[in-house]
């Protein structure tokens, strides 16, 4: 024995409430999911403190929900942060320029309070070159930069990143608008720099120095993801692949070239060397004759994104049918119903399907009908996520789909012409969408379209018990529709509505609901200013934003209560009203 200060063994363990912080923090490190960490933090004051001090990842779903400084102060150990800005409908041009969502305050606060920050991700925000320069100079171990649907920066800002971030692993630029300053941003990676694992510049319009790119790719032996832009021609893709046969994900950039058999042979040989390739994408104005060059990688592919590819016909279908292990397929409606039937028969592991319209503004020829979706949902047992643009739909098809696939988590159907009824019965599509929500008990995201009455919303409100995001356009008859949604849908986080006859009453009757949600967007509905004022007064923790026609700037205080409101955007916040509104946005 003789163990100095040891007490009797049985009494040694300290009670729960006095566990040292390090023990708590270590325990919490096994809770990666933010929801679990939030639950732990709510247990008691001690756990709240331990959790917030040890939080490593922070996701801010609405940049105006909290002030950047407060977020940084509250969670001082964050290593990875993601911030989202503009509302989703900004993707479709419904939010005019200069709306807000500047990344600068977040970058500044992070630079001050998170010197050890390693990852930063911005979505739908305005990121300036100054932001990028600040990122490059403020975080000595910065590793991952992801910008999705952002704007406000140029290749000069990218040069600051490539020059300054010595430990960069990922530079992922997805669908951003980047000003081309003809800066040789790629050349700023030092020759000694080898840590890159992901490089995605597919959204960049301009040229890059190919020799520099080739050298970069050669020396970064851990490069797993490479997504090129339109400026890189096909033969260059082949030589890059030879330098990086370890690639897991490739975006090919521009794929159109006249057929030359020697180029075909080069490509085929290059792809044959890529044994690890699992994900393929690219802006393919693809010449079908080149598709067979990819055949050797088809079997290994789990993800195929042809949503920018205008290739069609039997070559496309033959190509996809070889991808037996596909889990994710994004494609244009050029594939048509018969192409999807082949997909249904070949890709039994499919989990996610997105079909985009090749001619969104043309009126005419229905390229894709309900048949394609019915076939895929019948034959792909793991299909759980769908985005489908088509010309027509029936209740019968939707009911069949619902019966076949109760495991849907995301169902987004867009019938191109608003208010299109069931084309066989001419009835509304209430029955079809009701079947979807009744059957798919785990549905988290839903977009409805076609002719719909208030009744479908009754069904959605009653059955959408896991629904987090709902998008509605040109649907419903009356206030009742909105009331069903707001009084039901227990877990609703985001609701976006356009062109529906929903008015003030359901909004005011369900005001409290809005605080349980992240945000509500209503445009071209039947709202008036008075109701928005009432809502704002009743719910101080909501910001109620009104958008007028840009250029028509009457101060909202002077307008009468019955003035119609074109766009309403409401969100919960602990930061109070924002101070960076443009002249066409007013906070009531």
């Amino acid at each position, binding site marked *: 024995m003789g163990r100095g200060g040891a007490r009797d063994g049985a009494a040694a363990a300290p009670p729960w409430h006095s566990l040292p912080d390090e023990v708590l923090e270590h325990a919490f490190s096994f809770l990666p999911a933010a929801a679990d960490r939030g639950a732990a933090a709510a247990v008691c004051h001690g756990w709240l403190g331990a959790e917030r001090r040890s939080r490593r990842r922070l996701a801010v779903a609405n940049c105006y929900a909290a002030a950047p400084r407060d977020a940084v102060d509250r969670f001082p150990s964050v290593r990875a942060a993601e911030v989202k800005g503009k509302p989703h409908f900004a993707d479709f041009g419904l939010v005019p320029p200069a709306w807000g969502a500047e990344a600068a305050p977040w970058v500044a606060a992070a630079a001050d309070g998170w010197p050890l920050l390693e990852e930063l991700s911005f979505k739908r925000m305005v990121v300036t070159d100054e932001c990028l320069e600040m990122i490059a100079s403020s975080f000595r171990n910065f590793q991952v930069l992801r910008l999705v649907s952002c704007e406000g920066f140029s290749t000069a800002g990218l040069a600051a990143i490539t020059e300054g971030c010595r430990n960069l692993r990922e530079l992922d630029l997805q669908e951003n608008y980047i000003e081309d300053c003809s800066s040789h941003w790629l050349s700023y990676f030092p020759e000694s720099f080898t840590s890159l694992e992901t490089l995605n510049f597919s959204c960049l319009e301009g040229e890059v120095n190919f020799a520099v790119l080739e050298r970069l790719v050669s020396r970064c032996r851990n490069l797993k993801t490479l997504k090129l832009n339109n400026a890189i021609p096909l033969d260059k893709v082949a030589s890059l692949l030879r330098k990086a046969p370890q690639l897991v994900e490739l975006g090919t950039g521009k794929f159109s070239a006249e057929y030359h058999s020697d180029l075909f042979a080069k490509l085929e040989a290059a792809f044959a060397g890529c044994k690890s390739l699992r994900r393929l994408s690219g802006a393919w104005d693809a010449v079908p004759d080149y598709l067979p060059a990819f055949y050797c990688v088809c079997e290994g592919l789990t993800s195929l994104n042809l949503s920018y590819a205008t290739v069609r016909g039997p070559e496309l279908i033959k190509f996809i049918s070889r991808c037996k292990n596909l889990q994710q397929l994004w494609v244009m409606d050029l594939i048509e119903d018969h192409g999807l039937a082949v997909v249904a028969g070949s890709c039994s592991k499919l989990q996610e399907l997105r079909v985009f319209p090749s001619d969104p*503004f043309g009126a005419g020829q229905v390229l894709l009908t309900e048949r394609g979706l019915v076939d895929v949902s019948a034959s792909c047992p793991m299909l759980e996520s769908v985005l489908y643009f088509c010309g027509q739909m029936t209740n019968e098809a939707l009911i069949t789909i619902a019966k076949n696939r109760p495991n849907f988590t995301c169902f987004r159907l867009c019938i*191109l012409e608003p208010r299109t009824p069931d084309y066989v019965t001419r009835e509304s599509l209430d029955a079809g969408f009701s079947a979807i929500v009744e059957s798919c008990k785990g549905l988290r995201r839903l977009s409805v379209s076609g002719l719909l009455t208030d009744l479908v919303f009754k069904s959605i409100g009653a059955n959408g018990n896991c629904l987090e995001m709902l998008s509605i356009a040109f649907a419903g008859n009356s206030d009742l529709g909105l009331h069903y949604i707001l009084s039901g849908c227990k877990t609703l986080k985001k609701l976006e509505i356009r062109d529906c006859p929903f008015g003030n009453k359901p909004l005011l009757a369900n005001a409290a609901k809005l605080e349980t949600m992240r945000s509500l967007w209503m445009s071209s509905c039947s709202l008036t200013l008075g109701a928005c004022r009432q809502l704002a007064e009743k719910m101080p923790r909501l910001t109620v934003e009104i958008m007028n*026609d*840009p*250029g028509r700037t009457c101060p909202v205080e002077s307008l009468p209560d019955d003035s119609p409101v074109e766009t309403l955007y409401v969100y919960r916040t602990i930061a109070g009203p924002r101070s960076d509104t443009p002249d066409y946005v007013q906070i009531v």
Partner: protein
Amino acid sequence: MELELGLAPPNDAGSCGKRRSAEAFGVKKPTLPLFLRDDDDDGDHGNGEDDTGDARDCEISMGNKRKRLVGWPPVKSAHRPRSNSHVKVKMEGVPIGRKVDLSRHASYHQLHHTLRLMFPSSTSHHGDPYAVTYEEGDGDWMLVGDVPWEDTVMSAKRLKILLV
């Protein structure tokens, strides 16, 4: 009768239950009807800010084009047909021109807003009425607003803001 550049449709209170934006915001001046209201049916609750609808008599000639609505169908601009949409903009009486990316604007309203930011009234004639014109492929100058917005984006080579 004083004319000014207005974004409001012609006063037509009858056909749709909604009040016109112009009335609602207290502006009563008669406006140059640059945008023809889409007055199809009153089941169509309209698009508020969108004034780019074809007038009925234009629909026949539009032939194979779907009626244009702002932001519909919901496809991102990356998935839309692309054009080289950066065009030069010059304003009469202002020596330095600007450039604007038409494809990043979903409607005339948004373009007008951007132009107002680029050419604030303090740099030129205060609040004078003006018209925005664009040069087409064949060299003709057209008034912005006559054809659906998407068509303007595809065909405009440059813009000129003229004082009326």
